[in-house]
């Protein structure tokens, strides 16, 4: 079956590793993606901080393009894009006047009919049913599943998992053999979009998330958001400097962990692109 994918900007650049692992998994499970043709940036934090209308128009163009191309189901691996798309669809659904105004801005018809899946929902629906038979190398490590903010919040709108102590990623990780630790930092914020403008705050917040995972004896932190990944991985030198520490715990995308478990190479799932060395293979 063919379904749509909205990679979002990160997956073409700083989260290329995540993109590689998503596509490698799809290939291994015989799933085919169609990229939403000519997709644009969702606007991210910048748009909704500075311009509400723009922050709705940008995601709506993406959803309208998906509809125009007959993509009834789209996977959005980036948790931040996922949140923007779902929140936009929700706001327009509840406000016909706003929906008309935004349609007029983008000069496209928009109905709001495409189903939007985050990466864990996609895994649950398409990977899990065929997973057991494919596991050749169980992921026998202790892990801290870090969901971050936007996969689970705003909870009332996303309606996905529990806002406090979510479980879906933990369940997936246990299915591939991991030992999932109790981890109270699961949904604490990493500092998100302040990465460049306030690296000090990101170093502080991300450091707490890393410290707790290391303290609990985790071998890896498992993530499903490119922004969380870049803050915990690429910003590691800043974090270690801020906390005067030498945190070495690797940060692995859930799709990379599954890839390793079904026998894909570290290279194939993008692990060689990380800043923090991943000794797990």
């Amino acid at each position, binding site marked *: 079956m063919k379904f749509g994918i909205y990679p979002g900007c990160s997956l073409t650049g700083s989260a290329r590793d995540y993109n590689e692992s998503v596509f490698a998994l799809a290939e291994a499970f015989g799933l085919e993606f169609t990229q939403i043709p000519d997709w644009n940036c969702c606007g991210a934090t910048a748009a909704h901080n500075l311009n509400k209308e*723009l922050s709705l128009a940008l995601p709506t163009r993406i959803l309208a393009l998906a509809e125009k191309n007959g993509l009834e189901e789209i996977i959005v691996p980036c948790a931040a894009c996922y949140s923007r798309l779902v929140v936009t669809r929700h706001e327009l659904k509840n406000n016909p006047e706003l929906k008309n105004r935004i349609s007029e801005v983008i000069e496209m018809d928009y109905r709001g009919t495409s189903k939007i899946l985050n990466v864990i929902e996609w895994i649950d629906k398409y990977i899990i049913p065929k997973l057991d038979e494919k596991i050749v190398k169980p992921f026998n490590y202790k892990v801290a599943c870090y969901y971050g903010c936007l996969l689970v919040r705003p909870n009332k709108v996303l309606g996905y998992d529990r806002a406090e102590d979510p479980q879906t990623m933990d369940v997936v990780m246990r299915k591939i053999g991991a030992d999932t630790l109790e981890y109270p930092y699961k949904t604490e914020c990493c500092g998100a*979009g302040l990465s460049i403008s306030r690296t000090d705050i990101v170093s502080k917040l991300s450091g707490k998330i890393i410290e707790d995972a290391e303290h609990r004896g985790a071998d890896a932190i498992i993530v499903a958001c490119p922004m969380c990944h870049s803050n915990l991985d690429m910003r590691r030198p800043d974090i270690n400097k801020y906390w005067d520490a030498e945190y070495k715990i690797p940060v692995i995308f859930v799709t990379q962990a599954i890839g390793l478990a079904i026998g894909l190479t570290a290279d194939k799932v993008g692990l060689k692109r990380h800043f923090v060395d991943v000794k797990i293979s």
Partner: protein
Amino acid sequence: MSHSEHHKERNTLASSLEKNVEVIAQKCYQCGKCTAGCPVADDMDLPPSMVMRLLQTEIPANDEKVLRSHSIWLCVTCEMCLSRCPMEIDIPSMMDYLRQRSRSEKKVNKKAKNIIAFHKSFLNSIRFTGRLYELGLILDYKRQSLNMFQDISLAPKMISRGKLHLFPHLIKGTAQMAKIFKKTSN
């Protein structure tokens, strides 16, 4: 008599919030859960529960304090406050509204200069190409913030890992993007 009838003629931030984002500041009973859960409360001049309290007073000087605060720009929209608020007050939407008011009334806190420079650079990048061009974003941010040496060692490491494009990707709909930006410019 409802609260809004009581203040029929009011022209306060609280009344604008009701009208524009359906946030009713008077609902807040100061339990402090938002502030307790806010990841950036430590760095804020006014933690979220304090912002709520100031709005409730509907005193012009307090509205002014809110619009001129550093807090509204430090909020990262992690949505923790909303998820824990017993009254389900949509503080993140409120923050978006306050940021836009703060800018349109030219009351932006000086300490937020770099945060706003980053957001502007981000939008500049997608305005012309349709997608984020990270290298362009970083260079434009450096120009706007004058932080020339920040993250200078990061770019080569990103390039060697294939994580930074040297050239932007232009979508076909760039003209449409330009229109979207124009029509939504406020």
